[in-house]
């Protein structure tokens, strides 16, 4: 907390986006998280991504489960729709909302506790369906809200604040996402907004399930020596493999990269994601390569980050299921419910 709420300033010459909105128009209410929590930086990165993409805040949906991370949907895009759902149940809530209205932009915020323990089944099925959303997993290795118990992402050997050592193997959301069929798999760090903001933008523009596993330190319960999710540890072992930038449909690709280093991937909206390989031998379009690279990074004690895997060819949930692209609330009742005759006709087709 702070002693007063971040004020809105009528600043002269404040920068604006294509809608004429200022960055502060994408803020939410004041954060109540611990000062220095990585989650606040992720919140700022999400707000900045929406601002830079000039998405109308009221055309976005924010959904989350339970946890400090899940609380943060209140702290950005105050005009957006959304809900804090039951612990671990955000994916099914989001899936349902998307089926009813695919015209909005969906962003889910969760934690390692919310996603990798109680909500693990929900998350995997949303990935498998390729639901069109960005899923931001704010990963701090603990249950922050309930005062710092190890979560399922805690590394073997990582110590709790009072010295207990974790002996169980961690779940890696990126590996699981690859296995479950997610089409956009990324890892980043709350302390690297230069990487994180473009990743969120690319994820928002990707048509399908985009998971971003964001290392987001818990300053109160997991930022000590011995923790492998602290700021110091993350900065030390941080490794950038593939950088991603979103380029809108009409814009020229400004290539000031070395030839061969950059791979443009065409998106459904005509825009492109520019993949810049920082590790030259990496192929972010190959699932197998992504697997082996992520596995190898563990032995090399690297925290491998960037857009690790991207598949733009697989259909998203709405397309696969032939869902209406018109929001249900805009379809007249007579059309939504054409009456008993129409039902009979439909059933006759299955006889």
């Amino acid at each position, binding site marked *: 907390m702070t*002693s*007063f709420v971040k004020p809105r*300033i009528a600043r002269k*010459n404040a920068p604006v986006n294509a809608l004429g909105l200022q*960055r502060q128009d994408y803020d939410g209410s004041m954060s109540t998280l*611990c000062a220095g929590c990585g989650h606040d930086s992720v919140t700022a990165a999400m707000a900045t991504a929406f601002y830079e993409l000039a998405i109308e805040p009221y055309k976005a949906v924010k959904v989350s489960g339970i946890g400090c991370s899940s609380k943060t949907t209140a702290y950005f895009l105050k005009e957006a729709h959304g809900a804090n759902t039951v612990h671990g149940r955000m994916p099914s809530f989001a899936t349902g909302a998307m089926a009813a209205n695919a015209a909005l932009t969906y962003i889910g915020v969760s934690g390692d506790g919310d996603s990798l323990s109680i909500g693990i089944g929900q998350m995997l099925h949303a990935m498998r369906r390729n639901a069109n959303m960005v899923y931001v997993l704010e990963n701090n290795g603990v249950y922050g809200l309930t005062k710092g118990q190890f979560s399922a992402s805690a590394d073997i050997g990582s110590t709790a604040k009072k010295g207990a050592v974790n002996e169980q193997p961690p779940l890696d959301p990126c590996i699981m996402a690859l296995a479950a069929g997610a089409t956009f798999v990324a890892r980043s760090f709350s302390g690297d907004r230069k990487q994180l903001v473009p990743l969120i933008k690319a994820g928002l523009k990707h048509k399908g399930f985009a998971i971003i596993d964001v290392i987001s330190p818990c300053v109160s319960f997991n930022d000590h020596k011995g923790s492998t999710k602290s700021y110091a540890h993350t*900065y030390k072992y941080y490794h950038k493999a593939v950088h991603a930038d979103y380029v809108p449909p009409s814009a020229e690709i400004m290539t000031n990269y070395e030839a061969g280093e950059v791979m443009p991937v065409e998106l459904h909206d005509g825009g492109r994601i520019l993949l810049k390989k920082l590790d030259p031998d990496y192929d972010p379009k190959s699932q197998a390569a992504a697997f082996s690279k992520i596995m190898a990074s563990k032995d090399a004690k690297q925290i491998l980050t960037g857009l690790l895997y991207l598949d733009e060819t697989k259909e998203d949930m709405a397309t696969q299921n032939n869902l209406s692209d018109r929001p249900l609330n805009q379809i007249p009742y007579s059309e939504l419910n054409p009456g008993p005759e129409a039902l009979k006709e439909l059933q006759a087709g299955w006889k």
Partner: protein
Amino acid sequence: MGHVTPTDVNNPDYFHKVVDCQWACPAHTPVPAYIRHIANGEYSEAYLLNRASNVFPGVLGRVCDRPCEPACRRTRVEEKAVAICRLKRVAADHKDDIKKHLPKKPDKTNGKRIALIGAGPASFTVANDLAPLGYECTIFEKLPKPGGLMRSNIPAFRLPEEVLMEEINYILDMGVDLKLNTPVESMSSFLEEGYDAVFVGTGAPKGKNLDLPGRWDAKEGIHIGIDWLESVAFEHTDKIGREVLIIGVGNTAMDCCRTSLRLGAKSVKVMARKPRAFFKASEWELEDAEEENVDILVNHSPKAFITENGKLVGMSFDLMEYDIENGRITDQRVTGEKIIPCTDVILAIGQENAFPWIEKDTGIEFDKWDVPIVDAVTFKSTKSGVFFGGDSAFGPKNIIWAVEHGHQAAISIHNHCQGIPLTKRKPDEVELKSTKMGMFEWRYSNSYDGSERRKMEHIDLVDRFKKLDTEVELGFSPEQIATEVQRCLNCDVHTVFDAPKCTECDACIDICPVECLTITENAESEEALRTALPSSEAPDGQALYVSTDLPLTGRVMIKDENICLHCGLCAERCPTAAWDMSEGIVHIPHAQDQDFAEAAE
């Protein structure tokens, strides 16, 4: 690749510059610190803090040229500056008896005799700084009352005589000898009187004339603005004709037109040669004149005085048209002529220095414009022991500049008398004191108050003209004071960063309401570093704060001082207290701070 070196926060100018108002004030008045005193109801403390820098808070709280206000940081956040000047008046109006806090006449003098010629703000400041140190100061003034132009030209409806006299008396009470009605008529003979130092504070007393056809045909009705205001001030003039034209549109013109209305003129027109954007008068003086129904006519260039039988009956003007590009006149032409009838013309087109009483062989040299050659730092003339300051030094400026010249000349006179080189002057220093009192508790009110500038109330028009010396501005009400003080952003409470403590969690970056912070790789230049910020505009003189290398990544924290609100949210948000909000007290030495023992070696 070159690297920008970390900001040296111990350089006294670095944080001083961040306090826009203080930096812009010629005497570097610590504005936010006195505003905080006012906010706490400590009017006497606010007054004394002012007085230490600007000597005449009551006077300046009414009539200062206020270069601080256009500079005020608040103008970068919203339209209007903090009413710095009006708050100064609040301190002066509401203070208790502060005499006991002023330096007393010393028990014995140091035997050094200083002559000060002219009883304007420059000389009084020199006396104020030197008398308490034991110098025997004598002021010689040709007029029957002290104050210089503050008395003779600034009308009492803007600056009441009691306010001026109170502040002059504080200085006279320090044992300063004032000789009125005593013009110095020959510098040569004056120099023979054996003073240890002479300070010339005689102002720029010559009003400019306008030698157009008909000028000398009129036996009466044409007045030189500053002479006319002086004769009104000393009650030699108490009326004027019905229709008055003022030539010129500077601050003198504003005082002339408003004074004319009070002496019975029925119609007063200010005649300007150029469009409004080129007026010299301050915006607030123009507003005050227009509120009194003075007409300001633009694009009229004076051509001739029209007289009938030695009586002024009007003036003719060329009607002008200008081509203006980017605020500059690129071409002009006359499109016609117009005659405007009048009974009186007041010429308010400028003033100049004039030293008919300084002979050519005194050793005091003048340049080709007959302006004395004066050193801009020490204020010494070409003759050892003779100093100039105020309008006499570099031409007409204003009171606050005269005060600052006085402070600097006093240091020089002190050094001169003590055998210290004039250039050996104590440098400014900055002292940083944390304002932290506890969790989210600071010694200043850090929350941002979006209130708009309070408007100074004026006495009703009907009551205003009844007497010549009825003060127009009423001062701020308690409610206005309470709001206006909160508008000040406390720019002297600085964000001070301790890089080794930073864990690079970005909390400060996210909380900052104006996005003036970021962490980035160091770069070859400040411009390159600025591109890491969302808004990289950098108005003149506003610095970029660059930290030392951060421990975890070797990157740097940068901060744009331009738009920081000094709200302290960064410091409240920081989990390791790497940011602190520290009050920066700028120590600006005056004569009394010149440590003799140390300076002499």
